[in-house]
């Protein structure tokens, strides 16, 4: 049994400690945000925040998050109470098929937490681990910059 904090609530999953965190989140915890893309930490689709850092979860064993704080895209915000990034992604219509967005959103959240006023180069660098095949990159960059602007004091 591995106890950790998942999207702000206590979670305990009864799974072997070597099960990848992604499988545990999708199967046992019933989440759909973190997505399987490659299984070898090469595409970014499965990223979540662990203690505020954006990391891939398709290889990381469940045992590694015991006692830590895990936040998935579902934990960033909801339609009723969205994260500024989620609002900005909708405002910029930043997506096509959307399969890559969950991972990109959590990496963008980690970036803005560490650097509330990033320039475009910093956004590109933070999103470099993420692949998007639909070509929504420029909208995504604009959305992150928009969220940063709106997070600034007036």
């Amino acid at each position, binding site marked *: 049994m591995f106890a950790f904090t998942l999207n702000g609530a206590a979670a305990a999953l009864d*799974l072997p400690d070597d*099960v*990848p965190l992604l*499988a545990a989140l*999708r*199967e046992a915890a*019933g*989440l*759909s*945000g*973190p*997505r*399987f*893309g*490659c*299984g*070898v930490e*090469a*595409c970014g*689709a499965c990223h979540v925040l662990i203690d505020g850092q954006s990391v891939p979860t398709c290889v990381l064993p469940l045992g590694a998050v015991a006692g830590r704080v895990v936040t*998935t*895209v*579902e934990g960033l*915000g*909801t*339609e009723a109470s*969205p994260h500024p990034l*989620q609002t900005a*992604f*909708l405002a910029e*219509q930043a*997506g*096509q*098929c*959307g*399969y*890559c*967005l*969950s991972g990109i*959103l959590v990496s963008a959240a980690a970036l803005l937490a560490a650097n509330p006023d990033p320039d475009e180069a910093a*956004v*590109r*660098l933070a*999103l*470099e681990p*993420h*692949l*998007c*095949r*639909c*070509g*929504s*990159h*420029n*909208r995504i*960059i604009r959305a992150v910059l928009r969220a940063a602007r709106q997070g600034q004091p007036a």
Partner: protein
Amino acid sequence: MSATLPSSLATNPRLSQWLGFSADGTVVIRPGKVEIGQGILTALTQIAADELDVALPRIRVETVTTPTSPDEGVTSGSLSVQNSGVALRHVCAEARSIFLGVAAQGSGVPVEALRVEDGDFVGPQGAIASYWSLAERGLLDGDATPGSRAKPPSARVTVGTSTARIDLPDKVFGRPRFLHDMRPVGLLHARVLRPPSRGATLRAIAPGALPEGATLVRDGSFLAVVAKAEHVADRALVRLARLAEWDERDTLPHEGAMPAWLRQAVGESSVVAERDAGGATATRRIRRDFFRPLVAHASIGPSCAMALWTGDTVEVWSHTQGPYNLRLDLAKSLRISNESVVVRHVEGAGCYGHNGADDVALDAALAARAMPGRTVRVLWSRADELGWSPFSSAMLVEVEAGLDDAGNIAEFRLDVTSNGHSSRPGRGALPTLLAASTLDPPFAVPVAINMPVKGGGGAQRNAVPIYRIPTLRVGMRTITDMPIRTSAMRGLGAPINVWAIEAVVDELAALAGQDPLAFRLRHLDDARAAAVLQRAADMAGWSQREAGEGSGTGLAVARYKNLGAWCAVAAEVAVEAEVRVTRIWIAADLGEVVNPDGAANQLEGSAIHATSQALKEAVRFDRRRVTSDSWESYPILRFSEVPKVEVALMDRPEMPPLGAGEPAFAPTVAAIANAIHAALGVRPRAMPFTAANLAAAMDQG
């Protein structure tokens, strides 16, 4: 008034198949096209809202299920709005007219005195009825009739505005939306063990246990493992791979010698276009070859499907582009009747053409057959997706063209050599699904075909130049030996054909001593092509452009399929160790635009996809297997490499709508190639435009 029905309605005329109203004040539309990330659900909702005069939130879209949904074939070829949108507009306009007629008759208020306000039928004395009050009357049980009752373009309210995508909130909040997210009660997870190489057959399975709770499924050389938990299925697959023994042999050509292979392989020749209008003879000629390797769709989400057998019938959940076509090939592969198969479409990741979506559906049906009464889900691995999906064919284009003494294009000959560009299911006697050739007894693998040019063609798509050329001959050779399965991918043959044409036109302009823009405009009789070209050039500041010192700008224009949207692209490159595309300007004439931001999203996305293909992509293989089965070995464009993109749409609300998903792709490849020449003085001859391929082109001269 048109005397014929839109094509999708001619084959699916029943109005109630497309549209329904509920007493609770909601509308359901049932298009036969599916969402593949292109935003079609949103565009169709806008069209329905305008023709019915109801608010957008009342409308729900029902995704395709056989056999009840309209059969609109395959969602491909940038035809979703062109086919489904035009059909739905007709259906909604006719429904509005039928309902108003019934309301008028019932109330005595003349129909001309009625208007529709968010679904209520309002006369001089107020509302007399509504879609909702008449919902149960069966008014849509008849067939559509010819003659358009649609509103004039000027009366459209929602169409032509950038309504927000209806599918995007789910994707931004991480809510279940994809097939991958479905978890029906009692779901089982399966993994398929693909052979270690092409054409390998299973000799034996060595003795040894699978992990506890995992079940082996075998049919001929088809192998799968099924388990309750996904991670157990994953472990069982690793174990099974160690136990399976295969007979293997060399079946693939030498990757490095593909142009020669294309020249020598067995094929069928045909003439695509030929004319000799006389005129001056060419006095200065050039001859050039162009090559593109096999390229992959490379979806971010691996293909996924679920299947459930009940007795002799199977229900399949799939992110296929063609649910009815998939159903036909599932029935053939499973050797059951078409009526025994139900296919339900659920969204998947973007596919960009015929990827593994259909193949995995057969995998799921085969795995589930061993588990009757249980829903079984198959998810492909990244290696399956990049290594076993159909690919877009390797292609060779040879051009010979000449100028007359006055500097006009006098002759143009283009020959395209390629495997077929469609192995889509449901179109032949044999199933095209991957696992079908591994069953006992196996099905032969049908060779991919090139669709006729009147439907847009395959390898020959966009092989006929749009310029005024008196003497023209375009030929195609379709290779009939298919060592690696090929099928449809964004643009089909257009990227290499447009690249070849536009590179040669640039060279002819130089030979004539003219600016590439002026030279093109002088040879264009098609005003809409000329308009987008001029617009893209203006956006890029063409007349003030600077070139040399490792940077340059290139131009290209095409009309997609020679019968779809017009699109011109200017691209700017900076060449360091490798080529970097820094900016792209796109001007497109899509006719009527239902959702301008959605169209821009498609155009800019396809230009970035095209940039990736132009600069980086090639399927790698040895004599037995595809080796580029990871993101490391099949790299695509990353955030740090993505160019800035600007889009302009021509304002043509009165013209028929044309698709936006593909028209920018081929001109982008061509504009990049021409920009590379402007920057380096070298003409690319082989994709991708890597330093190594450019060095080879330089040696070739």
